């Protein structure tokens, strides 16, 4: 008898992703779906759809999803989790949603140690609105609203979210990973697993920041984007676990 | 029967507590009642006041310009409310803190050295209960016993150690009022 060794996770619909070529969202969706399948929690998972490129993620996720106002995703997730404490609730947020307009919500959700998991997709740019500066846009990086490159005197410095949240007592599992090579993709999957486990085991708040490519708005080819991640993003946003309840 | 009362004094003299207690007592006696702490433009200058209406029928407006009775704990409040009391209305004053003469000649006046009596009992803070006891005893708007019985419902639990002090002050005020003779200007 033949045995399938690679198949579509049950937590994903059979719908092709609409994301741009080289975008990381498809990979992240799949990793989340795989982890949910692995834990067997699809029927008690409630996800969120943020304002941004992933707003239609419920077209792909085969479980309950709640669309949220920009930045309020962790507050909405809090409301859901408090009503359904046995559910597994995760927020899916971009860098604008989490680190700009919703920075208060993510900080206070972490401080309350809400039993939710935040999946934070950091691609250093606002994707859906056409490539404006994000709070995580690197210095000198050109965007639609920093056409001469991000100048800290005018536009401030990039925000390191994991380092910030790791200072909070309520934050339990905080990790940063990247999608720049298969090894790091697998590490990302491991981190997502640990983050969900932190919630399932009722230990506390968990967040995985995933450095993700956005070739279209970076105006680079997918291959050059991967290079840019390694040379520019990762040095500024170092990978690793900043806080963990698990033995190393 | 409708009695509109203003209770006024410094913040910290237990004005709102007096108002709250009186509301509760009226309710326990099955009367219609409506009370409101200082509001709007009146909320200034460190003075506190509480307006309440006790009635045997439905109360339309909780807001009124002219009280039937003013219970006045300090001089600034007297300055503010003396002219507002209705013709031939009742003025209850804390003479310990009010030295000036009453200007109006039509008012019935109940003079209670509330702060002094409270001090004799052992705590200045219960001057509010002294004057309340005097007012209730003289007007019988509610029964003194209901006021005493209602204290535990209004006093916060962490202040229960002062329950007997408060009821003692109410009774002392009532006793003082009984001794006062009634003539044109004094109840």
């Amino acid at each position, binding site marked *: 008898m033949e045995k399938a060794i690679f198949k579509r996770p049950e937590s994903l619909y059979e719908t092709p992703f609409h994301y741009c070529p080289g975008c990381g969202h498809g990979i992240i969706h799949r990793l989340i779906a795989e982890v949910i399948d692995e834990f067997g929690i*699809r*029927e*008690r*998972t*409630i996800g969120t*759809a943020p304002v941004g490129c992933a*707003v*239609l993620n*419920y077209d792909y*996720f*085969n*479980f*309950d*999803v*709640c*669309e*949220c*106002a920009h930045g*309020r995703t962790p*507050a*909405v*997730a*809090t*409301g*859901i*989790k*408090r*009503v*359904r404490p046995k*559910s597994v609730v995760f927020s899916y947020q971009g860098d604008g949603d989490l680190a700009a307009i919703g920075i*208060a*919500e993510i*900080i*206070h959700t972490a401080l*309350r140690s809400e039993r939710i998991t935040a999946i934070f997709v950091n691609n250093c740019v606002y994707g859906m609105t056409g490539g404006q500066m994000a709070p995580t846009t690197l210095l000198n990086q050109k965007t639609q609203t920093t056409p001469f490159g991000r100048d800290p005197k005018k536009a401030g410095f990039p925000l390191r979210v994991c380092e910030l949240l790791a200072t909070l007592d309520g934050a339990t599992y905080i990790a940063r990973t990247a999608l720049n090579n298969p090894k790091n993709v697998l590490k990302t999957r491991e981190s997502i697993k640990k983050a969900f486990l932190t919630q399932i085991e009722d230990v506390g708040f968990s967040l995985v920041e995933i450095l993700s490519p956005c070739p279209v708005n970076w105006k680079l080819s997918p291959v050059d984007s991967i290079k840019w991640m390694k040379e520019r993003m990762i040095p500024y946003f170092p990978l690793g676990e900043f806080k963990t309840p698990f033995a190393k | 029967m409708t009695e509109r009362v203003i209770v006024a004094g410094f913040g910290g003299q237990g004005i709102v507590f007096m*108002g*709250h207690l009186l*509301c509760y007592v009226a*309710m326990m006696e099955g009367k*219609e*009642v*409506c*009370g*409101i*702490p200082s*509001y*709007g*433009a009146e*909320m200034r200058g460190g003075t506190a006041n509480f307006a*309440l209406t006790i009635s045997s029928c439905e109360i*339309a*407006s*909780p*807001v*009124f*310009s002219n009280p039937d009775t003013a219970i006045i704990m300090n001089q600034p409040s007297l300055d503010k409310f003396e002219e507002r009391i209705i013709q031939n209305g009742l003025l209850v004053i804390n003479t310990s803190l009010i030295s000036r003469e009453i200007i109006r000649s039509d008012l019935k006046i109940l003079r209670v050295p509330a702060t002094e009596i409270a001090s004799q009992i052992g705590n200045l803070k219960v001057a509010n209960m002294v004057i309340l006891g005097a007012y209730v005893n003289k007007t019988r708007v509610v029964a003194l016993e209901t006021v005493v019985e209602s204290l535990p419902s209004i006093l916060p639990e962490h202040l229960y150690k002062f329950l007997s002090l408060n009821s003692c002050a109410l009774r002392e005020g009532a006793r003082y009022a009984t001794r006062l003779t009634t003539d044109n200007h004094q109840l």
Partner: protein
Amino acid sequence: MKGNEAIGEAAIRAGCRYYFGYPITPQNELTAYMSKRMEEVGGVFIQAESELAAINMVYGASAAGGRAMTSSSSPGISLKQEGISYMVGAELPGVVVNICRGGPGLGNIAPSQSDYFQATRGGGHGDYYTIVLSPSSVQESADLVFLAFYLADKYRNPVIILGDGFLGQMLEPVEFKNPAFGRLPRKRWALTGAKERPPNVIRSLYLKEGVLEKRNWELSKKYERMKKEVRYEGIYLDDAEFIVVAYGICARISKASVLLLRAHGLKVGLIRPITLWPFPSGVIKEVRDKIKRFFVIEMNLGQMVEDVKLAVEGRTSVSFYGRPGGGVPTPEEIYKVIKDGKGYF
């Protein structure tokens, strides 16, 4: 009991188990009350980091099928408008209490009716309505909370309770009567986990051409059904030559003025809208032809007066008298306005 506390207790008795708030005067007693009572009944109380977070927690709790509520006062309600708009878009029930204070800006903490337009015209972005209930006593504050939760669930739409600082701070006896409303449908749309059913999605985004237009037409049919919930109190309408229209605490004060005017032989009636949206235009249309003048009394610069004028349709005169910025009229003041036969405009 204080109005604010009565609202809290009524919410608990109406089965609300999720309250999310942020301190602001003059509604703080309500938030404090909920922090204590939710603990006692095993419910959830969160002091959120902002009004934005609080209303979005309501959004999430409601999406998950819970009976949820938030409360605030005018400046905070402005912040909550984002969430209220999303709740209408996603058809989520919920109760929002506005203990209104003076504005614009930080204004003051005195009672006001300055948020009538905001409440009755949707309030946030988009094109929508919410039911707006206006109590005028502590008892009615409690009664309308029960009704608010029922109507919110019935129509899958947020319901606003528009009080003011006076009602919130006022002490009156109150009895909690949990009325028997009709049966509500099960919340099959709620996010409970996709077990033995296809996934549920709560959303307000409809990008495809024409889809949102169609949906908004569907929602408009719902708003039409909501209009049947109109409620008002009418006093002395049968023989009235003049009618005072006022709501909330202003109606209580006006009622005393009407009684005073009646005692002086003037045939004055009172219409007190209990639902501000839907507005009780029907009763005004019924009586308008025999009324010499409507007097609209509000604690603002004149907002509900526009709804009265829309209902009167120019058939008779409408005058307005208002006290903006935290002013509270007295019965004698209103008496004089009507006796003299003219308002501010």
